[in-house]
């Protein structure tokens, strides 16, 4: 798993945050999505907000979902 062509760690972090915060399987239902402490993510602020909005959209489509916790960001 070390075949990356890109040596720039910042690019790798940005690519990972783009994916892990905004994509991937969303388990909603009775599970909770934790997105507190938005202000602690440095390059990920924009995608984390996007992630929160996506989660809200998915939650609003499901009648069995609990409210999201307070986002706690700026």
């Amino acid at each position, binding site marked *: *798993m070390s*075949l*990356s*062509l*890109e040596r*720039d760690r910042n*690019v*790798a*972090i940005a*690519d*990972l*945050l*783009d*994916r*892990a*915060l*905004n*994509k*991937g*399987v*969303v*388990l*909603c*239902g*009775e*599970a*909770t*999505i*934790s*997105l*507190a*402490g*938005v202000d*602690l*993510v*440095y*390059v*990920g602020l924009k995608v*984390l907000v996007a*992630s929160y909005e*996506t989660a809200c*959209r*998915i939650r609003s*489509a*499901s009648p069995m979902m609990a409210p999201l916790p307070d986002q706690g960001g700026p």
Partner: protein
Amino acid sequence: MFYVYGIVDAPRFDAKLRGHQGAEVMPITCGDIAAAVSALGHEIAPEPRAVWRHEQVLQSLMRRHAVLPLRFGTLAGDRETLRRVIARLQPVLSRDFDRLRGNVEFAVRVKDIGEMSRPACDDEDKGPFAPGTGYLRAKAALLRARGAREAAARSVEHELRRHLDPHAVETAWEIVQGGDVALTASYLVGRDDIAPFFDALDQVRRRHPQLHVSCTGPWAPYSFVASNATEAWQ
């Protein structure tokens, strides 16, 4: 409270892994698949270090199993709740496993398409003009610049896809408005096709040395899971 990293296509896994807060990663079985979880003592901060930990657990699991990555920050209150949620998503998770098994994701970024995206300059644009006319001309120039950048980005995308797509199972491209990154892409590549994919990338770099094309990975296939779709809940 459990932190959930991903879904594994086996009811259990043997890897001894440490997740957030040093807790052991363990399976919560749901039929033929399992959620990879660790106990959470207190809230985790969504910092890059924590996101790396999330990815490292997934990478370790991917050495032996097909894994569907969960979005960072997913918590489950208890085992039974998590089992119920997974059972409800099982059909779409199964389809994802069938589609993604044996594949990994690479992230591609393209920068520095500057010269290619510069619009032709019209002498009539040089003014001076009355304030209203100047505003409208500036607005028109901005729209022309955006159009030129988008056309250049599409052209670069077409050229890269010509070389890279034959080695990919699926792709997802996006034009980025503003900033120095013009294009981003996600490539789903079979493990046996990683070397040819890298060769194709090197070929693109040699042919177009003026472009800055970065590639990171392999990542868990975040961009290609269908289980994040709203339809799964309808």
